[in-house]
């Protein structure tokens, strides 16, 4: 990384590389050696980085899919723990992965600092003096004009300046003048901007990792959410910074809707919410949908999942309503066949629980029921009722999606359509009172994302100018020639050198010469 990205025709003597002047051969050798080794190191580390990322795509990763990692452990009980010790299920958080990219960035910074200094010096330095014999350069031209040398050279310089070349006029004595010109500094500038932006990008990512937080929450139609850690189903707090810093917004899910193709492929999702950015603010409506998150106070609310919630009513023998709630059922397949658990801990002589399956479009098959379409065209709920101690008072944390059926007594199963009633043996009645939908929201705050975005834009800009700008030098010399008829004449010689990618330079050179001759 201590050289320009491309360096085609590096002729050491005429090099445009910013080199400390005056360059002794020992200095140059040492500089060369250093750049050689660090470039090699960078190459090696780049290759290692690419290689190290590969297992992260071949093995299941905890950050992406923890369930698959567990499956891998079950399938390979010996290999799993061994690979785990090498962090191969968390490749992108592994110490060895971090070691590679941190080394790479250390080497990058080590190269960048002296290079920025050199480039800053090169930017201030005047274009070099013309070599003695311009006709030796790859592109050159000689012509003769009427007029004196100084006026001719000023004219040549003005042509170069018009084309935004950096120029320096020199009096060479004996009436001879020369102009040295250089262009394409933007190549190295772009190169440096690109590499510096990489460092800034990494800093932005780190910023997000340290001060960002995220969480997910499931909200049923009509339900609300307020942004405090306890409201989340899953919450990953910021590694640095306090939890009380969460912006105090709230939102209510008015209605979730989904539409599907006839094949069952999803067509659109909409979560219509009313949100308040502060507790006192007036509620405002918003349609959260795929690719269209809701942004409140630097925090984004994304729609990430959905499913059905089943409304169950339970009445005791006397007909008194003891339970009336929506229960989210979790989808098991693309057609939204779902499972769930309902718990009725109070109001009845015995605690009552249900395990159930829900099919939005019910279709009986010889192998059991299934759902044939994700929309609620023929919703059916099958319930199994269980009596006994639900274990809610044991003090042990318990999932709302599971029931300790081993210690409970089964008191019947039933298939219900919406509105249908089921009377248990003890006179308790269970009603499938209706259907709602739920949506899961991911709520994320990443304070580094703006830094990352700006760095990314600079990366592209820097890359473009470092790859497409060509660096070139040009010299013009005007020497008074003999004048027999009393008219002053001047011989003009010009020579050019393209340091990077000579393609097209000859054309540019010719057009410049044409303008100078005009």
């Amino acid at each position: 990384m201590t050289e320009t990205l491309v360096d085609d025709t590096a002729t050491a003597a005429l090099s445009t590389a910013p080199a400390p002047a005056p360059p002794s051969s020992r200095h140059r050798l040492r500089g060369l050696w250093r750049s050689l080794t660090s470039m090699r190191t960078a190459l090696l580390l780049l290759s290692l980085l690419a290689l190290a990322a590969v297992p992260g795509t071949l093995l299941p990763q905890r950050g992406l899919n923890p369930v698959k990692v567990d499956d891998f452990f079950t399938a390979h009980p010996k290999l799993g723990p061994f690979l785990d010790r090498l962090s191969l299920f968390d490749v992108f958080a592994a110490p060895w992965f971090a070691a590679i990219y941190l080394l790479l960035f250390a080497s990058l910074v080590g190269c960048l600092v002296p290079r920025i200094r050199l480039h800053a010096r090169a930017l201030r330095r005047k274009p070099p003096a013309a070599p003695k014999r311009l006709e030796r350069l790859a592109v050159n031209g000689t012509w003769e004009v009427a007029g004196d040398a100084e006026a001719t050279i000023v004219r040549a310089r003005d042509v170069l300046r018009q084309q935004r070349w950096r120029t320096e006029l020199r009096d060479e004595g004996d009436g001879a003048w020369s102009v040295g010109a250089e262009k394409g500094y933007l190549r190295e500038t772009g190169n440096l901007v690109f590499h510096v932006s990489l460092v800034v990008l990494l800093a932005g990512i780190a910023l997000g990792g340290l001060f960002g937080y995220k969480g997910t929450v499931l909200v049923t139609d009509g339900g609300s959410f307020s942004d405090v850690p306890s409201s989340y189903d899953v919450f990953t707090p910021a590694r640095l910074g306090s939890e009380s810093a969460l912006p105090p917004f709230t939102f209510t899910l008015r209605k979730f809707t989904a539409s599907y193709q006839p094949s069952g492929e999803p067509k659109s999702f909409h979560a219509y919410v009313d949100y308040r950015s502060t507790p006192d603010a007036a509620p405002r409506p918003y349609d959260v949908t795929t690719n269209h998150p809701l942004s409140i106070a630097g925090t984004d609310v994304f729609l990430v999942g959905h499913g059905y919630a089943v409304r169950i009513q339970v009445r005791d023998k006397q007909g008194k309503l003891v339970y009336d709630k929506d229960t989210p059922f979790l989808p098991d397949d693309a057609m939204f066949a779902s499972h769930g658990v309902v718990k009725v801990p109070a109001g009845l002589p015995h605690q009552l629980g249900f395990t159930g399956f829900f099919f939005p479009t019910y279709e009986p098959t010889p192998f059991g029921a299934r759902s044939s379409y994700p929309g609620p065209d023929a919703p059916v709920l099958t319930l199994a009722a269980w009596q006994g101690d639900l274990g809610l008072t044991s003090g042990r944390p318990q999932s709302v999606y599971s029931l300790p059926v081993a210690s409970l007594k089964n008191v019947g199963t039933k298939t219900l359509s919406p509105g249908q009633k089921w009377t248990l043996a003890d006179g308790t009645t269970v009603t499938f009172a209706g259907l709602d939908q739920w949506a899961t929201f991911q709520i994320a705050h990443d304070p580094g994302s703006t830094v990352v975005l700006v760095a990314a834009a600079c990366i592209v800009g820097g890359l473009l100018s470092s790859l497409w700008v060509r660096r070139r030098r040009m010299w013009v010399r005007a020497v008074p020639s003999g004048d027999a008829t009393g008219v002053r004449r001047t011989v003009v010689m010009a020579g050019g050198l393209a340091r990077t990618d000579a393609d097209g330079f000859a054309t540019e050179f010719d057009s410049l010469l044409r303008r100078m001759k005009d």
Partner: protein
Amino acid sequence: MAGVNVSLAHASDVLFTWTVLCYAVAMFGYSVEFAFARIARSRGDQVAKAERIGRFAVGLTVAGWLLHIGSVATRGAAVDRVPWGNMYEFSTMVALVAVTVFLALLTRQPVRFLGAFVMTPVVLYLGLAGTVLYAPAAPLQPILNSYWIKIHVVAAITASGAFMVSGVITLLYLTRTWLDRRASLGPGTASVAEYNGLARWLPSADRLDRLAYKVIGFAFPVWTFAIIAGAIWAKYAWSRYWGWDPKETWSFITWVAYAAYLHARATAGWRGRRAAVLSLIGFGCLMVDYYVVNTVISGLHSYAGVS
């Protein structure tokens, strides 16, 4: 199917078939010119005849290119969306870009020698797209329904088409340097005749190297932009700009491989053949990114539409 204009979808398929046919004949034409020119040149005659066939192949390529555009446009019109929503459509677009890059190069430089070598992978690629990857016209999945599909996917397609052309040139470069090395073993070795035949016809190694670099110099920033645009889209769609999803990771690996190529090209001892190999590795990663990741590794980018 709902939301699909069946007759336009059919027209697109017919145009696609004609496109492949034109390209295949053009490929044959370029190959004939190549073989013919070798024989003709060694005898010192009939070069003009070979060149006529070459020009005819260029004409056919342009005709195929127009049909190709027609096929893509009708496909888009049939489903009323951008015509790059699944792997069939994506591969078709990549091939279109590869042909466009070749034709664009042809207007600026005498690169007809590339014809057979660009058209061969293009025809194979389209053959693969039309058979294995083919997906009937259908509307987009909701997650893809964003204007970022225009920005991110167009950039990815453009970069891939250009990388494909650079890959072909790099292979020719490696062939040329291999021939040069064998020839430099001295006269009398068995390879001299072969060298005279093939190498005289190929441009110099230096020119091929610069040509490949030029194309990568175009493709690499576009690829960088495609990754960044993808990250911005991911921020809207999946709530984070980067998550090491397999597709993201392989795009990153591809990027690093080409970055290594660019650095190698500026490093003494790595310039030339080693750098060329790095760029081919980059292209291999790109292929993994598209085909292995979409079909074998499951991730968030599962839009292949291949059953």
